[in-house]
């Protein structure tokens, strides 16, 4: 995809492996540095990205092989990140987003992933359907306090 719209754009695909969770956080955080984010804003973005990518690995691909894509863009001070997996998808999105709801308590998932994404970003959109993969879109204004 050619970028004619955004101030800056990047697209990354990587293996669905837990060791890439930290990698995805670094990519997103480092992509934002041009916006001169505060430490708190970086931390918020890292948390939200970590939750979305971990969910793709743990739930989407059930800890098996797969490919995750992440798009980052910046437009007028707003950072957007889209995390996508082609995994099992979410049956009931409304229920999935309830605080503390998890389908993997045996893996010590706390069910707080979506709550954190909502708490730390300005906008959260979840698109998914059974066996259709999952796309998480999150936005956050950077440097809003100025």
């Amino acid at each position: 995809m050619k970028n004619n719209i955004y101030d800056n754009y990047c697209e990354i695909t990587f293996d669905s492996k837990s060791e890439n969770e930290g990698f995805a956080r670094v990519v997103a955080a480092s992509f934002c540095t041009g916006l001169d984010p505060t430490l708190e804003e970086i931390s918020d973005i890292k948390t939200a990205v970590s939750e979305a990518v971990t969910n793709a690995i743990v739930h989407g691909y059930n800890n098996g092989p797969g490919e995750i894509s992440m798009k980052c863009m910046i437009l007028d001070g707003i950072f957007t990140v889209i995390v996508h997996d082609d995994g099992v998808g979410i049956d009931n999105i409304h229920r999935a987003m309830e605080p503390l709801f998890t389908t993997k308590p045996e893996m010590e998932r706390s069910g707080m992933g979506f709550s954190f994404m909502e708490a730390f970003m300005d906008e959260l959109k979840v698109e998914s359907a059974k066996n259709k993969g999952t796309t998480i879109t999150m936005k956050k204004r950077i440097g809003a306090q100025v």
Partner: protein
Amino acid sequence: MEREGEVFTSEEMERQRMDYIYMVSKGCLIISLNAELDHHLAEEMRHVIDGIIDKRGVYRIIIDFSKIDFMDSAGIGLIMGRYKKIRDYGDISIVGANESIQRILLISGLHKIVHIYENLNQAMNHQKGGHNEK
């Protein structure tokens, strides 16, 4: 015989030295984190920790966050899991959490069930106090 403050140096531990170090002393397990506490690290840690708890009769766990600045909901899961395991006879303390980790503890409600101290010294002193009182 157990020496005080013994540091594990088995091969397994050597390998993981980069991500976390632990130490067992008188029923107290101190875990010092060196890498961001996410799902990847949590998965690596939980079986190790549970093994130690069972084998060494641990009833106090202190997790030292002072060297790291990131934890996500997988860290909450890890702490909750250990809490459930030892809550009947022991407790969990968290030390050295920076602002953003404190925020995570707060939003998750974890601050209500674990002790939070500024640093390792405070946590250790407080535990001694607790012992004496009994």
